[in-house]
């Protein structure tokens, strides 16, 4: 349940990003990019977010999540592929060192105000 901590950080960044000159701001959508290997459970994050943002300009805001595929690169044979299961072995050379290109990010990309 580290989603509570993530929701807190996320709400803080979103609130800090609202321009000070807007009167009674109301955020409708929070856009996120979350890697498929970021160990975030969507409904846990949404549940925590709803609790955290009560009585703030984010109350009622919807989390729109763009899930980022797990892309990896094999330094042995230069192969690049998307990992869809837990297996990270290079399907080409089987033994190269695998580095992750994407799939672990937890980013807030934008907020949309009413």
């Amino acid at each position, binding site marked *: *349940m*580290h989603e*509570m*901590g*993530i929701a807190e*950080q*996320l709400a*803080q*960044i*979103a609130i800090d*990003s*609202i*321009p000070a000159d807007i009167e009674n701001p109301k955020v409708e959508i929070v856009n*996120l990019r979350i890697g498929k*290997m*970021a*160990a975030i459970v969507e409904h846990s994050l949404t549940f925590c977010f709803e609790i955290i943002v009560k009585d703030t300009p984010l109350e009622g805001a919807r989390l729109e999540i763009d899930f980022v595929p797990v892309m990896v690169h094999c330094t042995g044979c230069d192969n690049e592929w998307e990992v869809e*299961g*837990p*297996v*990270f*072995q*290079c399907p080409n050379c089987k*033994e*190269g*060192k*695998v580095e*992750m290109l994407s799939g*672990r*990010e*937890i*980013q*807030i*990309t*934008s*907020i*949309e*105000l009413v």
Partner: protein
Amino acid sequence: MEINIQKNVLEANETEADRNRKYFNENNVFVLNMMSSPGSGKTETLCKTLTKLAPKIRVGVLVGDICTTNDADRLAVTGAKVLQINTDQFGGDCHLAAHVVEKYALELGCEDLDLLIVENIGNLVCPAEFDIGEDAKAVMLSVTEGEDKPLKYPVIFQVADIAILNKIDLLPYLDFDAGLAVENMKKVHPQIPVFEIAAKTEEGLEPWIQWLKEKVAQKIGRK
């Protein structure tokens, strides 16, 4: 109206982790983040390991649990400087965040240490997500848990620098296939070094202790 942000949500933790890294580097202390599920034998492994490192290597341990000082009490007899972190002060967290490690590392004091081991909360999910400013991450699995755990919890095995398979002294009494467990670890993280040990009988401890000694020497060599 859309406001562009493009920020890492874990930025605050990463800033704090960077601050920890700077503090650890200034003191040339090698920091290992030890992670596993509860009961896999982290504390027992440390008890046996630390007595073999002292007094040549000066060791500190931050040990995280939701409650009790049981682990700190067990580790104190090794001669290491030990501090218990109880996360119930922080909402019963399931992992140690960088700011928690910072608070306790400063309280413990790293100026007179060569090695700091952070025994994370027993959990195979959340600790993997949080950088604490460590030099390396170790993940431990014990033979009473099931060979497929690396496939079920791939993230922690992916981010770890080394893996330890503990309690191999129990293999004759179990159906556990150690070869398959190591194979599964390598499927998730092809290059991961795996140390097969039995903390209780001290079987296989030497290569793991040697790894620690080398890492500490490399860090001290930076002075």
